[in-house]
């Protein structure tokens, strides 16, 4: 079974749980009743599109996130990387806002021994701090360095698209504060949402597509080159992460 199929099945199962135990017992094959339910109550898949052309690397998102989610000092749910390339006077500078990619096929979920990390019906991946034992498997499994051990809770912590704000009908803190409108947040399953239209009408890419994680955070104008890029062995490339610790790229 391909990864994609597996994901669909998993999430469908999650959805069915919501519909009712009786329906779940029917099995994986979709009956007409379930199909109708799926149409009338379409599932959300939250995602974010970051237009790096509009990003000026001002860190409003990072600080807003820190304030909103009380992220401990030295840890990061959201951060901005600067990529500097070239030689004088032909130099460039690009910005790369980073956060958890809320992957559709997340490696952090599959390695979690306690199921503390799980994928919600709306595609957001959360960590249940009561269940998390702090084993850090997921921190190592995440190809995006988006997770950290929160010293205040003893549990692993990461971006959850500001669930508290979402539940009150607000955009995530980083999206709301971005005065240049470089971030667009919404439901990727709704073809009429701004994000779906933007994703459809622009050249978008994701970080590390080779990892097969199917991220739900998309970028326009992504430059993910780094100093170890074997394609440009002699070119000056420097990535400033504005994080204290060294992170894998």
């Amino acid at each position, binding site marked *: 079974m391909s990864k994609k199929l597996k994901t669909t099945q998993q999430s469908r199962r999650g959805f069915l749980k919501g519909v009712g135990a009786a329906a779940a017992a029917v099995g994986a094959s979709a009956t007409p009743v379930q199909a109708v339910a799926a149409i009338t109550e379409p599932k959300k898949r939250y995602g974010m599109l970051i237009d790096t052309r509009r990003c000026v690397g001002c860190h409003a998102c*990072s600080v807003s996130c820190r304030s909103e*989610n009380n992220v*401990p000092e030295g840890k990061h749910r959201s951060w901005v990387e600067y990529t*500097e390339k070239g030689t*004088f006077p032909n130099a460039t500078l690009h910005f790369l806002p980073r956060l958890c990619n809320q992957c559709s096929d997340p490696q952090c979920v599959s390695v979690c021994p306690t199921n503390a990390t799980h994928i919600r019906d709306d595609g957001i991946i959360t960590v249940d701090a009561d269940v998390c034992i702090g084993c850090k498997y997921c921190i190592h499994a995440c190809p995006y360095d988006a997770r950290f051990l929160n010293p205040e*809770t003893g549990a692993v912590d990461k971006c959850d698209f500001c669930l*508290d704000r979402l*539940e009150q009908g607000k955009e995530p803190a980083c999206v709301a504060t971005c005065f240049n409108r470089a971030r667009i947040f919404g439901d990727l399953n709704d073809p009429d949402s701004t994000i779906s239209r933007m994703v459809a009408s622009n050249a978008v890419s994701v970080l590390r597509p080779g990892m097969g994680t199917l991220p739900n955070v998309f970028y326009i104008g992504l430059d993910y080159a780094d100093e170890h890029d074997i394609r440009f062995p002699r070119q000056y490339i420097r990535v400033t992460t504005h994080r204290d610790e060294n992170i894998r790229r």
Partner: protein
Amino acid sequence: MKAEAVKADRQAGISRRGFLGLCAAMGTGAALQLRSFKAIGKNNDKPGSWSRGEVIPSTCNMCVNRCGIQCHVVNGVLEKIDGDYHNPKTLGGTCAKGQAGIMTLYDPDRIKYPLIRAGARGEGKWRRASWEEAYEYVADNLDKIMDKYGPEGLLWSSSTDLTEIFFLKLGVFLGTPNFARHATLCLASRNVGYFGTMGGVPDSDLANAKYIIMFGANRLESFELPYNRDLISGIENGAKLVVVDPRMTVTAAKGTWVPIKPRTDMALTLALMHVLIKEDLYDKDFVDKLTVGFDALKEHVAQYSPEWAEKETDIPARTIVEMAREMAVAAPAVVVFPGRRSSWYTNDTQFRRTLPMLMALLGAFDVRGGNFVNAGKVKLGEFDWEMAPFDVAPCVDGFDEGPFPLAAHDDGGYVMRRDAIIDETGKYPVRGWMIYKQNPLAAVVDGNRTLKMMEKMDFICSIDVQPSQTAWMADIILPETTYLERLDPIWTTGGKVKFISIRQPVVKPQGEARTILDIIKGIAAAMDKRRTFDPPMSKVFDFTMEDYVDKQLAPLPIDRKTLARQGIWMPGQQKWKLGAYRRGEKDFRTPSGKIEFVSERFRRNGYDPMPVYEPPAEEAGRQRLVTGRYAWFTHSANQNNRWLNAIHPENDIWINPDVAREKGIKDGGYVMVRSRVGKVKIKAYVTPRIRPDTVFICHGFGTNSAGQTTLYGKGGADQVLMESKADVITNNQALHETWVDITKV
């Protein structure tokens, strides 16, 4: 703040929570409660696990641009700041600084009660005083100085803000003529240059422009909403952004970077005008109708060919010609950006004059996509001060009597005033210094010389929220409330639309901090005990901020309570109107009523009526030092903010890779930077984003104040290196006139 206390604070108060816990333990924050702290990740799936408390609209003060904010307050604790959706500036967004306002409010380093110096100046030994004692102490010292030297023995320093008026009035009523305000540390040369040419500084329609040229302006890092958003939208709409700067700033990264040799900007603008006129690309209609002196200009710029400019600026002649042609094609939708901080070189005012001239040649004024005159401001009610202005002594340095006839005399000339006080070349001695909302030790060129001026002072009082470099050297620090704890006078502004906004208290003051009006009242009452004023000082300041705001709002159809609820107020439907100048309905505020290529006012006062280029001095083997900021810092104000400091904990010196290789400097290694007046040890940042003949240091680091626990001991101070030079027409300090030697440590 004693060193032990600072250390304890640092150990205990890493997080906001930790700090608040400390407050509660000390009994100062009994009323403070933490929000039922969402254990991060805990029960995340349950809806409505907590909700935001009260939402209070207010006006930000993390920089000087006063964006609208919404403050979420839960049980008396500020939990989150969001941008105000109703404010036309912010439309719901804030920058990193605005977000970090919480950390300025709950900063463990904040001064929470009056501190009187207990050791030598700068030693960092303080004793806590009551407010009554503090007022008596200040009044005692002011009285002593006024007895001995008269009121002119006092120097009065403050920076522009809504509350500055009360501090200034105290100085005026005591009778000192010596003010040192922020204009000559910032934008005096731009203002004088633009006023001398077109009678005012125009706004820029960045969102609709087709071609935007910025000279050294770094709008995407030292930003002001909504221009930042407009600029990005303009680029998205197809505008070409050209940034002329020796360093590749974020703004330059978003457009075309033209790495010009520093101090030769005027050569470029003159050459652009040369090409526009020579190739007949200028807007003849506009020039005929709305300018004077074109023939003289044509003759004047004939000498400044692109080939000549190439030698001066290091920009290929072909590029200059292309720039001029592209501008002409895009005209009139061209923005020639006026810039803001113009404290660069000694020829700044004349250089700034060339910008409106270039704009006029392109006809890019009073038109969509070009420069325009903004909508003006909502007119507020005037407050009647009970005391009339009276005659005072002339300024200590004679600034008001001649050397800078075009400059604004009320603002003073910082560099000149400092020289007069230190060298005793002034008319009389100045021995007392009152400082409010200003950090001259960091803000003025040649920091060691500012220290010398402090040595001359018998008494220094600093009113501040944090132990800034200047406050650390003061005799007494009076703790002011932050913008989140006080009501301020109403702010009125206008760009394409005009509106007013309110800054109001969202939480109770930390510790014993008081508003500036209360502090001024206290000093006034204490002065009344010692001297007789007519009317008595305490009577002059016998009003509350609420009274003041009510007076301001009197002519408007809105009251204070309603404004407090909605944050801003706009006068009805407004339409952005253009064309009054083109139709001849309005005149420029110049002697001729038009844009003046040749300024008779400049000629009368002994300056070149048209900008004349003079090549800069060269110092082979040395680098020119330029300064600026990153997007998350304001001047030297919030480098100590823990959240902002975490983004960039230590500043570094930008060095071109070729220079670094030549000098054996490694990226991340430390270097010693020496100028004629000072030296600084600082980390090297080797980058291709800067010219080989230039180095850059981000301003605001290298503090001498151990009270700034987050910042202390990190980075190097650029102002220590800078030589004491100033613009020749306005005495605006020249920050980029210093050459430095760099050696590996």
